[in-house]
């Protein structure tokens, strides 16, 4: 249905686990679709709902937030704080009509290069299914 549609995905990855996991996917030469572009933050606890809204406002079709597994956070519990913030953000973007399926929070450790690639592949497919968020005419 959405053939030829290449979604635009913004990723927020924490410096210690998921950004390192994404780097490991690279070092291991594990391939994944180029639709995601990652912005590095020190901790997912830094990701405010405004970052998510700004992404969609700027034309993103999906946003992936990736942090350390529970218990592994470099800052004790920033990832769990992020989880709470993301729950609220999902409700918010649902109300706004963006649809909560366009936002995903995942835990990816520094050793999970393969898992990072899998998450990106799967999420890219999910957004491809959902189709573009803003039509070109509106954007």
């Amino acid at each position, binding site marked *: 249905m959405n053939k030829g549609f*290449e979604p635009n995905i913004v990723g927020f990855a924490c410096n*210690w686990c998921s950004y390192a996991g994404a*780097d490991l996917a690279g*070092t291991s*030469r594990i391939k994944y679709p180029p639709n995601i572009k990652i912005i590095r*933050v020190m901790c997912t606890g830094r990701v405010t709902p405004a970052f998510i809204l700004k992404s969609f406002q700027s034309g993103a079709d999906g946003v992936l937030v990736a942090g350390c597994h529970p218990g*592994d956070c470099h800052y004790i*519990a920033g990832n769990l704080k992020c989880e709470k913030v993301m729950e609220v953000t999902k409700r918010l973007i649902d109300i706004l009509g963006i649809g909560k399926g366009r936002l995903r929070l995942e835990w990816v450790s*520094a050793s999970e290069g393969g898992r990072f690639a899998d998450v990106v592949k799967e999420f890219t497919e999910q957004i491809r299914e959902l189709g573009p968020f803003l039509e070109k005419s509106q954007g």
Partner: protein
Amino acid sequence: MEPEEIRIGVYICHCGINIAATVDVEQVRDSASQLPNVAVSKDFKYMCSDPGQALVRSDIEENDLNRIVVASCSPRMHEPTFRNTIQQAGLNPYCLEMANIREQCSWVHEDKASATDKATKLVSAAVAKALLLEPLEEKEVEIKPQALVMGGGIAGIQASLDIADAGFQVYLVERDPSIGGHMAQLDKTFPTLDCSACILTPKMVEVERHPNIDLLSYSEVTEVNGYIGNFTVKVRKKPRYINMGRCTGCGMCAEVCLLKGRIPSEFDLGIGKRSVPYVPFPYAVPSKYTIDAERCLFLTKGKCGKSPACKEACTADAIDFEQKEEIVELDVGTIVVATGFDLFDATEKPEYGYGLYDNVLSGLEFERLVSSSGPTQGKIVVGGKEPRDVVFVQCVGSRDKSVGNEYCSRVCCMYTAKQAHLIHEKLPDARLTIFYIDVRAFGKGFEEFYDRVREEGVRYIRGNVSDIIKKGDRLMVMAEDTLVGEPIDVEADLVVLATGIVPRVDVKELMRLLKISQSPDGFLLEAHPKLRPVDTASDGIYLAGCCQSPKDIPDTVAQAKGAASSAMTKMAKGKVKVEATTAFVDAFICRGCGRCVEVCEYGAPELQEAGQGVLVSEVNDSLCKGCGACAVICPSGAISMKHFKNGQIFSQIEAVI
């Protein structure tokens, strides 16, 4: 004063062909040159090379550049390099932004057009952020001249001695009653056949005697807080029920214990037996007894005969059943992690019959059996008889995806060759067979030793063992000889499994304690696999020995010396620069609600009276770790994260899409 005009230099790295093969570097460079405030846009074969860095420095001077964007590998790799480069040219190190177009672009994508498009966007996001970057001041903190070493095996012992010899105070924490670790359990060491105890004990004694080493045995680290230079550590000293000051190590308590000879000795892996009060092995350090609280009749049942015999027998009055655990707090500047490994549990390979048949032993059990300080005084006796046929099985729990261990344990080929040699020495008529997949004899003197063992008549058969079954009171080892492609059965009186090295069972707890990561194989993760093999991602925490990956004794000692040297370099300098990316509060906007105080894990923000009952939050820079949770929770937007401000990230978002 007029605001400074921002002049950005953009540098796109080819990384040989690592980037250039998948990303059209010239196209990225040309697009970047069109972006606002970009004064210079260049590409170069290797940006991290000397000429690459020199190019940036000369451009800064000649073109008055004040912000630099380098598009190359991950900032986790070369951000420190380029921060240093621009600092040399007089710029603030935080005026650098990197675009990760290698690990997160050229290496993971195949289509050149879309990879180039992505790289272009990543670069424009970096330029957008560079436009808003602010110079930051790096604070210096003092490094306490004390180190914590976790684990008293050969790695921890060597690291402790090196650091202590350099004049720094060391706290060596060992969970067992004695230091020594696995090396203390070995008989001879390959390939030189040095007696393990003979080379280890002098070092153990040196640890005990060293004026700069504080040995906390039978103790565990329970809490680690802080950061490089200023860690605070809590250590739980488990009760030994023995007064360490009084115990002379005479052993009378063990002699009279009602359960003497009935408790399996951990050190001898259950082959030997001990009493409730015990020293793990004769040359233990400290040479003091410990009462096994879980087995002691008096401590578990409240009653042991009329009164505990050990207490009566102890002429030094050292036994103290009232002893309680103690929590000790330590302040240290650096930490060396040397927590070692576990042995692969061979019951995970039920086809080998381990745990089922008494004459199937693990590699370490055989070490105890053959050791002259072991339960049989070194006599190789199985089921009351000397074995005539012995079979060794290599790669048990290593190089085996079915148990989740893809890696090679690196010591088993050689310890098996050594064990075969030891049997040959003691029982020259024994027939010895080794089943192997590949023999890895890569170290100094290894190949020569392997040759020697083969010349002694040990039969090497390339093949996987599929089953070990009972045949009378002997064993039948069934395998396939993969060189001739035929099944082969070998009868044996004793089978020794070359059990591999696995991460410690509690490695996750350790990771949480220290906020460090593990690699895909489960061992602790170094900061860089090639160039920072003893560092971790957390500054001030270093790795030594098998906690990082399987290795033999010389490699362990070398890494321990490396970890010690890293710790000493920091402590000798006495000061370290800490990240300047901390939170700060705009006092005019802050309404003093205190949400930041609640959310912070480190107690960095504090409410301060700003006159007349007005509260505002203030962040203590040296406590702030820069996670940014306070900037998210702040309802009035008064708190920002330096280097990760809302505006900076917004502009990245706009540019990246």
